[in-house]
């Protein structure tokens, strides 16, 4: 019997498989396909203080082995979440974490304070890496001083697990990782999407209303894996790796690179049951390869 449990710096996961924010709705959308209580955790849709309509259509473009999105944090705001969505999802038997985003530090603080009061939300993922909003978002995650300022500010008001999601659109991600660790992050998740764009040669127009958007899917996996490995060398807090994970093998690779847990994102659109399959697949991988505990895979790459 393989032990699949992961201790994410005090946050207990029944297994390392989580879903990436913005790709799994509020979990409810997937309940027809499988029981999401089998997952280690669910990161619900990016939540802001105020209601946001997001960007204009078109917001998505398919690219080779991936996709660009420019949704722009469409959500009804944290108060709507508390009143209408939280009551529906609070009893799911998995870690329901809220992805928190904002335009200003004050937004982040106010949203985190509201979520802090929700008994069945054991943690937040601080999104300082959204490439699709005009203000805030990624701007906070691309320099050490601004990343530190927002993480420190939220750390003061948020008492539970604080995961910080990093942007890959930086020169030195290990520096940013070390900086947010110093500012009080309990764990670090990466990578958010890579800034990209697509043009239709026939119409000579951009495929996204915003011209640029965030690239995800298998196309980004080698970049993500490299960044997870680099950050793992630079910090002591656990890392949650993501970027193009489509199957068990991909998840194992991220753990070998140093991730204690993984998030599966774009793959949910193609196979809504993929995360449940990866949970089973990790158990099988461990038993076939002589690992009693899945946590023994973390950073176990042999050089």
């Amino acid at each position, binding site marked *: 019997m393989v032990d699949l449990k992961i201790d994410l710096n005090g946050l207990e996961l029944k297994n390392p498989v989580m879903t990436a924010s913005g790709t799994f709705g509020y979990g409810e959308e997937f309940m027809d396909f499988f029981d999401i209580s089998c997952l280690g955790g669910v990161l619900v849709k990016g939540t802001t203080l105020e209601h946001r309509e*997001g960007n204009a*259509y078109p917001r998505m473009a398919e690219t080779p082995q991936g996709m660009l999105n420019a949704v722009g944090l469409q959500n009804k705001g944290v108060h709507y979440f508390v009143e209408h969505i939280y009551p529906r999802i609070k009893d799911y038997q998995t870690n329901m974490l809220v992805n928190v985003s904002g335009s200003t530090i004050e937004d982040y603080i106010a949203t985190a304070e509201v979520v802090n009061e929700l008994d069945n939300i054991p943690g937040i993922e601080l999104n300082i890496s959204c490439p699709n909003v005009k203000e805030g978002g990624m701007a906070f995650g691309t320099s050490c001083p601004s990343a530190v300022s927002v993480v420190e500010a939220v750390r003061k008001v948020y008492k539970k697990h604080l995961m910080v999601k990093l942007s890959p659109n930086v020169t030195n991600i290990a520096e940013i990782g070390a900086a947010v660790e110093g500012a009080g992050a309990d764990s670090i998740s990466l990578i958010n999407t890579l800034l990209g764009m697509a043009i239709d040669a026939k119409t000579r127009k951009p495929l996204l209303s915003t011209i640029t958007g965030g690239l995800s899917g298998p196309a980004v996996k080698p970049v993500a894996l490299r960044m997870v490995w680099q950050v793992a060398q630079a910090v002591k807090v656990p890392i949650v790796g993501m970027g193009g994970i489509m199957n068990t093998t991909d998840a194992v690779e991220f753990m070998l690179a140093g991730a204690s847990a993984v998030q599966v994102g774009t793959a949910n*659109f193609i196979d809504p049951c993929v995360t449940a399959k990866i949970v089973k697949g990790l158990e099988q991988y461990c038993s076939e390869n002589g690992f009693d505990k899945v946590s023994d895979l973390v950073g176990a790459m042999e050089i």
Partner: protein
Amino acid sequence: MKKYIDDFKVIKNERLNHEYVILTLKHPGKLPAMLPGQFVEVRVDNGPNTFLRRPISIHDVDVEANTMKLLVQEIGEGTRLMGQLQEGDICNLVYPLGNSFSLPATNRVLLVGGGCGIAPLLLMGRHLKANGIKPQFLLGARSKDGLIALDAFQELGDVHMTTEDGSAGTKGYVIHHPVMRTQSPEIDHIYTCGPEAMMKVVAKYAKNHGIKCEVSLENSMACGFGACLCCVADTLDGHKCTCTDGPVFDSTYLKW
């Protein structure tokens, strides 16, 4: 409605012309209920440029045989690969997705389809027939070759046609057909699916004549079930997902 993910078997690939095929797919067990206007997300394997599923309207359903038909227009790599599916191939679907056309209040009904947009109108025609309503269909295409599956529509109601080159039916767009030129149309409810420009004209006509009009949108989407928020339509209540709040919308609800 509960959503499923299943492997279907291709039992027929009927090529209609150089760009259209009708795939008949058989469910491994009992096909669940599916409503007119709903769609499926088709997994297309083996293409580096066909990463996401393809949303395709449900064209027809045979509950006795546990089969459904998809009308596929080959417009890109994904639909071209679908057009090459052979009898016996496996086709993985997430289904049934989206809302559906509503039933009309009277039996004075017109269904307007253009190009591949005729696809959901056949199942809606069957639904109407089952409810004792014989609708009129107005189907438009670029030329005669594009007017497809006419026999199936003719079994369900009166079929009017337009072609842009005049090779069949009335020359011009659907809006040029006499059924849409009259100042006092004997129509209370229009259902339309096709190119957006066509639907906008039809919706305007309906509004001008006080006719209820439901349109089926075809926005590009990733998931098909409300998780990605990519396929939004601009409505009176802001952005709404075409995949879950649609694909069928009352035309007056859209910011057109």
